[in-house]
């Protein structure tokens, strides 16, 4: 099992935003990171809900995190619990669910809780990038 890596990686010269990827599978974090870095995002990783909460509470992430992409089926604090935490503590950070198990009821419930997108693996890079861009755009609009 990969250790959780904290720290930042600046993917492009002009940073499009800072994204936290929460998934227990290192493979998923790897490809999501690769896909988003190419589009100029800074990508942080967390291997479960607990690490994700630690990450968002760490230093400048409180203020600078732009999007969280979160799996559902994970150890420790699972995706649903992490999402509930993010919604109550960081309501301004848009959340995208990226799950391996499509479930309509669950999707509806997450969208009701304010999750901006519900993506089912495998998701194409283009779709993922546009979901992230859309989420950031909505966040910017909400700030106005």
């Amino acid at each position, binding site marked *: 099992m990969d250790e959780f890596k904290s720290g930042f990686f600046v993917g492009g010269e002009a940073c499009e935003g800072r994204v936290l990827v929460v998934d227990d599978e290192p*493979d*998923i974090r790897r*490809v999501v990171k690769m896909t988003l870095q*190419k589009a100029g995002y800074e990508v942080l990783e967390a291997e479960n809900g607990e690490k994700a909460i630690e990450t968002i509470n760490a230093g400048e992430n409180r203020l600078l995190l732009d999007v969280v992409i979160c799996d559902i089926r994970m*150890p*420790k604090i699972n995706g649903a619990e992490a999402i509930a935490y993010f919604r109550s503590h960081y309501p301004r950070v848009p959340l995208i669910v990226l799950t*391996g*198990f499509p479930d309509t009821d669950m999707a509806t419930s997450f969208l009701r809780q304010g999750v901006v997108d519900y993506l089912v*693996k495998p998701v194409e*890079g283009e779709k993922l990038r546009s979901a992230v861009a859309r989420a950031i755009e909505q966040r910017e609009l909400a700030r106005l």
Partner: protein
Amino acid sequence: MESSDHTKVAILGAGRGGHALLELLHHIPSIEIVGIADRNPAAPGLERARELQIPVSANVQGLIGNHGVSLILDVTGDPEMETYLHAHKLPTVNILSGSASRLLLKLILHESKLEAELLQSEKLAGIGSFASGIAHDINNPLQLILGLAENIAVERDLTTVHEQARDIIEAVKRTSTICRDLTRYSRLASPREDMLVPVNEKLDEALKIARYASSFHDIEMIKQYQPGAAVKGNPDELLHVLVNLITNAVHAMERVGGTLTIETALHDQQIDVRISDTGCGIAPDTMHEIFEPFFTTKPPGKGTGLGLYNVKTIVDKMHGTIAVDSQIDKGTTFTLTFPDTEPSGQGCLS
């Protein structure tokens, strides 16, 4: 005088019919098999009778003259035997022979077919609950494959292309084992004769299957295997038993986590297979019902209520026993004990 609910039975004929009768009747507490006879010393029922410590004889006269016998089951199919029995039996003894014994045999074979179908339908119903686990295990590698392939399509660095292509190949291989494991598990248990089954391997196989049925997140696993432990039985059916017990153990720790301990041990010339959890435990007032058909504590649609019933049926068939030790909120231990497979007392495969 015999009590009305206790029957002493002699079986004549130890071929397929006699063997099937033995298998069925020796489970029934109110029936005592006082002996079995066959002219052919190699008849399969005779060997089984010796295993069950039921007297075996080549002498029909001696057996039917046994004063305790109240019922003779003649499955020799030999018309002369029928005549002989009617001429020589004691007046208090009843005889089931000819077409009546064939009918009995058909009913028994029908029941064993129904039992196999029941096992299979419970197994298939269980597989329905694997959907989320399977989706997880297939869609994650697919995400990796898709992401890497998209990158390869535009990647200029040849070393990276080669490395990522190799990762794709590995991911495809991992994914293909899922289908292999599941098709092997879902097929109808092969009707082959009992064989020596390496229990530790079956436990590992069961763990792989059980992962689809339940989330192993937050579960610590301890394995303590007696090297080479083996039991006699049908490997497909034993796998079914182990998947059921492991799945139940993990469900008992759902959401709170805990420790799953899987052990095999040799003691007093017996093989123990022990599956313990530190989960919610079984309420004492339901303990006597857990092996009853259609008993379940799971919500509707989650459990068939046939899991432990089938576990018990299979373990009985393997001449094993099940012991359950459970405490509310402390956990549950299921111990399966099987007869040693080797008279030498090694009980292990080399």
